[in-house]
């Protein structure tokens, strides 16, 4: 009994770990798409973020005073030592910062193409994906000479698990105890950030002036324009926020959940997040639910690997993994509940009215 409970908790625990990057990416996509900008470049941003984070965390973690002094003599010898210790001490944070900046930059590039130049959102997004897939390997090779990977990150170079107060003692308490120790405590900080991102995005969308305008600009940009608000600036802010969230997700992949960057490590998570966002009908809480569902199926499938099920035989792991996609297709086909995208999604806005 207790064993089964622990098993369930382990699956749920895995659900959270696997869902965290999906949640962050899906929230990024949601902000972008609610403003009318299709964000198929989530995948590329996630990958670029993962690389930037691992690369910078690795460089920061291994920085030495001597090395820095050689590269930047103007720091002075003492200054270089101090700088190195600052870099060493906060290596994962520097990685996070780098991931955010890179993703915001990619978001801005996407915005420049789609907002300023009224380009096709899909083409620009695909370009971001291809760019990220190629550049991460090329730059990674140039920096580390390890076939496009980053060096494995040490304990101090990544975000480690946070043990909540009393978690060890609590594990002894039956039922509730393991729940606290296994499921709630013991994740790295970015998992909590991901979970916190959902209410924050919901508040932003539904309780603030910015959110009202953001939702309006995705539906009827003309209405926003005639109300005297800049459509372009609103959309730029949306893609920048999306970049921020993607950056956190990327950092999670390589510098918290994983320990270093591996080529193609995003492995379609950006697209799955996009599907989760559609499955969640472009709404924060339902999207969270979709991400958790996708995470749960993945986590469950991993647990069931090689397990003999009664009547069925070996667990059909592939079938379970395919479920989210099947459900997304069914949803999009309009079988249960209609997924209505923002009305102006993918349409460039400019004052080309009339003549």
């Amino acid at each position, binding site marked *: 009994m207790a064993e089964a409970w622990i098993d369930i908790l382990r699956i749920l625990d895995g659900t959270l770990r696997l869902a965290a990057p999906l949640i962050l990416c899906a929230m990024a996509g949601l902000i972008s798409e609610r403003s009318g900008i299709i964000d198929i470049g989530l995948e590329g941003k996630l990958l670029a973020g993962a690389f930037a984070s691992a690369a910078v965390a690795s460089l920061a973690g291994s920085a030495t005073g001597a090395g820095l002094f050689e590269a930047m003599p103007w720091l002075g010898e003492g200054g270089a030592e101090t700088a190195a210790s600052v870099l060493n001490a906060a290596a994962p944070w520097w990685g996070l910062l780098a991931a955010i900046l890179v993703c915001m930059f990619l978001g801005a590039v996407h915005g420049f193409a789609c907002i300023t130049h009224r380009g096709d959102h899909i083409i620009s997004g695909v370009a971001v994906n291809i760019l990220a897939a190629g550049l991460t390997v090329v730059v990674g090779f140039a920096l580390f000479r390890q076939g496009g990977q980053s060096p494995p990150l040490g304990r101090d170079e990544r975000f480690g698990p946070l043990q909540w107060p009393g978690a060890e003692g609590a594990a002894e308490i039956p039922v509730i105890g393991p729940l606290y120790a296994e499921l709630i405590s013991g994740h790295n900080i970015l998992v909590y950030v991901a979970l916190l991102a959902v209410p924050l995005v919901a508040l932003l969308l*539904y*309780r*603030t*002036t*910015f*959110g*009202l*305008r953001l*939702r*309006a600009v995705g*539906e*009827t940009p*003309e*209405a*926003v*324009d*005639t*109300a*005297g*608000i800049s459509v372009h600036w609103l959309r730029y802010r949306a893609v920048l926020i999306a970049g921020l969230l993607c950056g956190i997700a990327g950092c999670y992949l390589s510098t918290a959940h994983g320990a270093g960057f591996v080529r193609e490590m995003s492995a379609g998570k950006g697209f799955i997040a996009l599907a989760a966002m559609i499955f969640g009908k472009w709404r924060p809480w339902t999207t969270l639910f979709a991400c958790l569902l996708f995470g749960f199926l993945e986590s469950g499938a991993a647990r069931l690997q090689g397990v003999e099920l009664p009547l069925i035989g070996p667990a059909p792991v592939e079938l379970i993994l395919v479920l989210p996609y099947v459900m997304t297709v069914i949803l999009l086909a309009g079988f249960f509940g209609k997924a209505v995208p923002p*009305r102006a999604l993918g349409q460039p806005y400019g*004052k080309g*009215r*009339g*003549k």
Partner: protein
Amino acid sequence: MSAPGVASVPPPAVRLSGIVKRFGPVVANDHVDLEVAPGTIHGIIGENGAGKSTLVSILYGFYGHDEGTIEIDGREVRIGSPADAIAAGIGMVHQHFMLVPTFTVLENVMLGAEGGFTLGPGARETRAELARLSADYGLEIDPDALVGDLPVGLRQRVEILKALRRSARILILDEPTGVLTPGETDRLFEILHALRDRGVTILLITHKLREIMEGTDAVSVMRRGRMVGHRKTSGTSREELAELMVGRKVLLEAEHGAPTVGEVALAAQGLSWRDAGGALRLDDVSLELRAGEILGVAGVSGNGQSELLDVLSGIRPLQQGAISYAGRTIDAKHPVDPAEMRRLGLAHVPEDRHHTGLVLPFEACENAVLGYHDGPKAGEGPFVSPSRIRGHCAGMMTEFDVRPPNPRLAARGFSGGNQQKIVIAREIDAAPKVLLVGQPTRGVDIGAIEFIHAQLLALRDAGCALLLVSVELDEIFALSDRIMVMNAGKVVGTLPRAEADRNRLGLMMAGVAA
């Protein structure tokens, strides 16, 4: 202090001087001057493309202007964006509403004037303000209703409320009555008068003479980008304004003699039609159409008229009911396609000439045989003869006064009125027994309206049966011998023209049985 006689004259609420706006080589506004006295309703009338909308778009900051100055209340202002216009106290109700359909009324009114980082306090304030405005001006509305669920009349009210919420003292309305029933139009003018009486200055853009004569204090007329006249409404007449708009004398009412009614040409029994979403668009519609008469179908756009035309012409297959025409009975089991109907002598001028009436990138001569391209007009057997097509079109263009009379010009190169003449000429040229006409003069200038109306009446007198669908009541009155009113897919009633008046039709259009 100041000289007697000059003292109490306030500066004009709006003064535009020498406004020039070019779009490439086209001069949309050519040194336009305009003065609007404060607290008046000032109409701007002109044909499509006369530059009215461009002018008010400049005033609202949508377009920059190339030359000229704008003064508000006697002070020169620079208006580079809608934000500047709003700050100067200008509000605008656009022809196509600028509303977010998935938002509530309250959210729409707040958008752009939220007052703070979070929505809560602004929402409470806006709610109170809406209550006050509704009490003051009779602008009642449920602040929590979804705008997408509201009828157009109320959506327009939301637009007006948006402007008032931003304390607009100058309100621009661009073709505000195009989508309204006569009753809603009357209500709109009551509201505008109430606003005027409290000092709001109103600029009303329209192409409808009736609204200018009934609703405004002063009027300015535009033609081809220029201001061609300013009049006090009380000192002018429909005829004078029409002449100013067109540049020549026009006959506003076509000669409408008594019809010589013959046999029943087409009869429909109990037609019902559901769209793909399952909504009942036509609900048990029956009608009889006789040779030599024009049956006008009146109703607010979207009440089943389009579906009726499509079902009668064979474009949409019949689901329920039957049509008897040319000795045949057409029902769900015995469908026809539009080509066969056309062969049986039923011609159709579709409502939307851009999408269904013409192929815009094609040459005029090709468009002039569309639907008849299998016949002798276009060539022999499977071959088309370009020279024959061009010759046929040239003859048609002379007869119908299409300008420019160039069969090789792409259809999109013609003005709306001339495009419509091509469509109507094509269908009349087929010498139909029954002609279905949808919105024959939508977006067409007065001169062309006069011509098209005369052609349709001539066809009636030649013994053709016409079914005329129009959202313009003036047009229904000008042409129809009998008037059928539709609401929500049903026939509310059919009246002889002599018994119909605007009030009665207005009530019927709103669904109140006669």
